[in-house]
């Protein structure tokens, strides 16, 4: 099954999981499955109208889905998805530093 990588600021809502296996034939279906597995993620990814929030970037195998077919972009069992933050600064997470220290 396809996988999706979770950036540090959202790991609070995935019990610290960094990579999650997801079901679906499209990016939209995969994200629906992700937010069903981890309900708390939904409000951070989608706005009230059910659209992806402006600063949420979804990449499939290295390509931004905005340059593909958006949430209709097809995926397969080997696809590797990433949620990439649009912000580069201002995020410092204790749990990540602790994780790195313990490695």
């Amino acid at each position, binding site marked *: 099954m396809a996988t999706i*990588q979770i*950036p*540090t*600021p*959202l790991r*609070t809502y995935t019990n610290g999981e960094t990579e999650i296996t997801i079901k679906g034939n499209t990016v939209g279906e995969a994200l629906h499955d992700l937010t069903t597995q981890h309900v708390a993620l939904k409000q*951070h990814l989608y*706005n009230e109208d059910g659209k992806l*929030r*402006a*600063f*949420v970037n979804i990449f499939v195998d290295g390509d931004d889905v*905005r340059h593909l077919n958006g949430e209709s972009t097809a995926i397969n069992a080997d696809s590797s998805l*990433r949620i*990439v*933050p*649009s*912000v*580069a*600064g*201002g*995020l*410092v*997470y*204790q749990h*990540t*530093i602790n994780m*790195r220290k313990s490695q």
Partner: protein
Amino acid sequence: MTTSTLNSPEYHAVHIPATRSLEASVGNTPLVRLRHVTREVPKSVQIYAKTEWTNPGGSVKDRAALFIIRDAEKSGHLTPGMTLLDSTSGNMGISYATFAAARGYQVTLCLPDNVSPERKKTLQALGAELIFTDAMEGSDGAIIQAREMVAQNPDKYYYADQYNNPSSWHGHYHTTGPEIIDQTQNRITHFLCGLGTSGTMMGAGRYMKEHDDKIKIIAIQPEGPFHGIEGLKHMESSIKPGFYDEHLPDTHLPIRTEDALDMTRRLAREEGLLVGISSGAAAFAAVESAKTLKEGVIVTIFCDNGYKYLSDRLWTDGND
């Protein structure tokens, strides 16, 4: 000395002597009144913004960077031949590189690889060495990288550590705070600014409280840990900067990224102020705060201008 007063904002030719160096032009940034995005604000409430991009390095970070470099030289921690090292998402790096170039120091910066292309190119143009870290790890990946490099080569690097270096907030205590008191002629009633390293808030806010404890201090931060307001930090889920005192602000306001983006576009199109997204967040918070007042003078900080964000979708997506 101010170049104009709040009551006579029209142009006055003033003698500004040539400065001995670029560093002498840091600070004393103009304070500009917002007049158009404030339509729903009572007329007896005024909102002003410090236009920090008028610093030579293009952002508020010039103040902290300059104090950090000067203090490190005075204490002997930064000596000729050493390389200044820190983690940054861009603006602080640009300020370090600006002053280090003129002082003859090398600069090495660790930064997440999703920083905007404008910032990468600016830093490279200023001669900084860039070490890119995984965007998925955010700033913490960059901080860890910087710490590892210092540990391996302690004699080579001066680790500026903007999140914990007290010179960071001292810069604002000695410059930003006094300037605002002077520019408003002691009329300021509310000081509002975003939290990143929190240096601006801790320095300028502390100065104002000591000057007049009736001045209300308002801190803004993103509503949650995953957001799109570059430079601001969601403190609850973060390592607190060493000098951050959460009790200094009287109020903490959470800001939605969508509101910040919308106000950033409005500032450009209604005020002619092309500013960064954190300035949009500050203006939105200032307007919302002003709506709750009967009278007052609110001052906020516009950290940088919008030229570093021109590749951002906020200018092409319209209202998100």
